[in-house]
């Protein structure tokens, strides 16, 4: 198509959009490095005159947190960070592993059931609050409430549709003649998949893993209703700060928010070419 140059007016529009896009990010970064006196100043201070990393230190120092401690927040964020890493990494690994097998199965042999995609999609439509209810009941009966095992099981199940359909779209891209050639060379069906198919979709496998990690790391509601004292994740901890203190911990919360978003933004940039594919269950490829 014709590729005209951007006109000056369009540049102005573009820069306005860019400002709106980046301003909230700028704000959270600035709040994270504000000293306590600047947190909730009126009028708000945009750029702190004395930037400091004290908020990040406070976050991991139980004593310091307790000093600010209003209401229930006397917990340092160490456990939440540990919990988030443990739950997201494990769940991502399992989800991608199981999803990979399903993807090859569905792509190469069909799943024999045309309603399956719809069933999976309706699983996504169901309000998570409602899936959480039976989980709370079932888990309390088998002792999985407030445990990482329970949380990871849910994360795997919830992200499985995404990993399966995203990986299926990568396997679909691969001509099946490659596997057939390997089978003619004497490999069994299963070995052909393991040693030929999987190495050939390495890039897709990486993108999917990162995408599923983003989903797991961002998950909030299940962690909120299934964690009490043993289990915590960063989003839950962040919400706790808001509840307990009505915002008196601005800077510390912002520091935790920054810690939570930095890995995701990096991962997101790495796989930006595949984000559309992930979000649309592989319906749109780039």
């Amino acid at each position: 198509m014709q590729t005209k140059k951007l006109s000056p007016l369009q540049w102005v529009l573009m820069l306005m959009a860019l400002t709106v896009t980046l301003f909230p990010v700028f704000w959270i970064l600035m709040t994270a490095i504000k000293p306590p006196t600047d947190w909730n100043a009126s009028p708000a201070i945009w750029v702190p005159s004395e930037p400091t990393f004290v908020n990040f230190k406070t976050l991991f120092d139980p004593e310091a947190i307790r000093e600010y401690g209003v209401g229930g927040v006397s917990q340092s964020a160490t456990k939440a960070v540990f919990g988030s890493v443990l739950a997201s990494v494990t769940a991502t690994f399992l989800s991608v592993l199981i999803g990979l097998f399903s993807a090859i199965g569905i792509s190469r042999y069909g799943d024999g059931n045309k309603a399956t995609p719809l069933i999976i999609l309706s699983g996504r439509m169901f309000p998570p609050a409602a899936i959480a209810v039976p989980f709370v009941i079932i888990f309390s009966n088998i002792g999985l409430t407030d445990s990482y095992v329970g949380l990871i099981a849910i994360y795997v199940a919830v992200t499985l549709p995404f990993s399966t359909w995203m990986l299926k779209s990568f396997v679909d891209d691969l001509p099946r003649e490659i596997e057939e050639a390997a089978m003619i060379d004497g490999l069994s069906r299963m070995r052909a998949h393991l040693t030929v198919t999987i190495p050939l979709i390495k890039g897709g496998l990486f993108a999917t893993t990162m995408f599923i990690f983003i989903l797991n790391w961002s998950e909030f509601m299940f962690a909120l209703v299934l964690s009490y004292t043993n289990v915590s994740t960063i989003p839950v901890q962040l919400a706790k700060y808001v509840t307990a203190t009505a915002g008196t911990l601005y800077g510390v919360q912002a520091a935790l928010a920054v810690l939570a978003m930095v890995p995701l933004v990096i991962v997101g940039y790495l796989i930006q070419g595949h984000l559309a594919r992930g979000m649309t269950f592989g319906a749109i490829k780039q």
Partner: protein
Amino acid sequence: MLKDSLNASSPETASVTQTPPKAPGTGRPGAGEKTVARILTMPGQLVSLLVLVAPLLVALYMSFTDWSPTRGSLFEAEFVGFENYSELLIWDTRFVYAVLRTLLISIACLSLEFTFGLGLAVLFMRRFRGKSVLFSAFLTPMMILPVVVGYIFWMLFQSSGPVNQIMECILGPDVALEWFKNAPLAVTAVIVTEVWHWTPLFFLILLSGLNSVPENPVRAAVILGASPRQVFWRVIMPMLKPVIIVAFVIRAMEIIKLFDEVFMLTRGGPGSSTETISLYIYKLAFNDFQLAYGAAAAFLTLIGSLVLIHLMLAPVRNQLLEAGR
């Protein structure tokens, strides 16, 4: 580019399954096709069955009882038929308002996200310096956790926060808006947050759609004397229709479940004036312990959204199937 994975397994896959590729004589007699297929898909099906289907069935059963955790075991609870459902639809104005509010937020968000996303995507069809850096920059919001987005905008909309500072610069010094104490303003704040967060998705999907529009029909239209405006609305947009609908469906599914951002911004307040369906169900189940009633509300929502999505997909169902061929 567009696969029919939203509808059914692709015709291509289906046709090949009917005539399985048989490795000529030399192939080793390893596991048969059916066995391999079963082994491959079993773990996924097992997980979905145990962790999604089973709880859904429990919730479905529960929605027909009057169970609450204070009344002992679920299986001793009294069976009340459709009482929860009729209560919700006829008497529970809070639920009805939550549904209407969620729909209002969905419509507002979808139209704004679409407009901004399309505008930006069209700008990105032009030639300019720093395109790849700007592309990444514009995608940033959708990579941030919903909870963090909620927290950021909660800070921005404080009465002494930067949004009010900017408003005062434009509208004069007396415009101190209390965003979270006034119902329409609070809903506006939720919509602004959601639009900021997810416009990048529309931008991304529409840009990839625009990039894959074939050149020939466009050239033909230009040669036949169509103005750029006509080319865009009469030639390019119709070709984008499936992409646009996929984007709308995916976003609609997510907005209907809107929870994290609202939880961080307003907790449904003031009063219950920003409660979305998810937030209402959450409060029913985990603040008021009306679990059975909450489950009924969830199933009504599921049925409603299935119907809605079915209707949204209807105009492009055939087109999506064609695209897979």
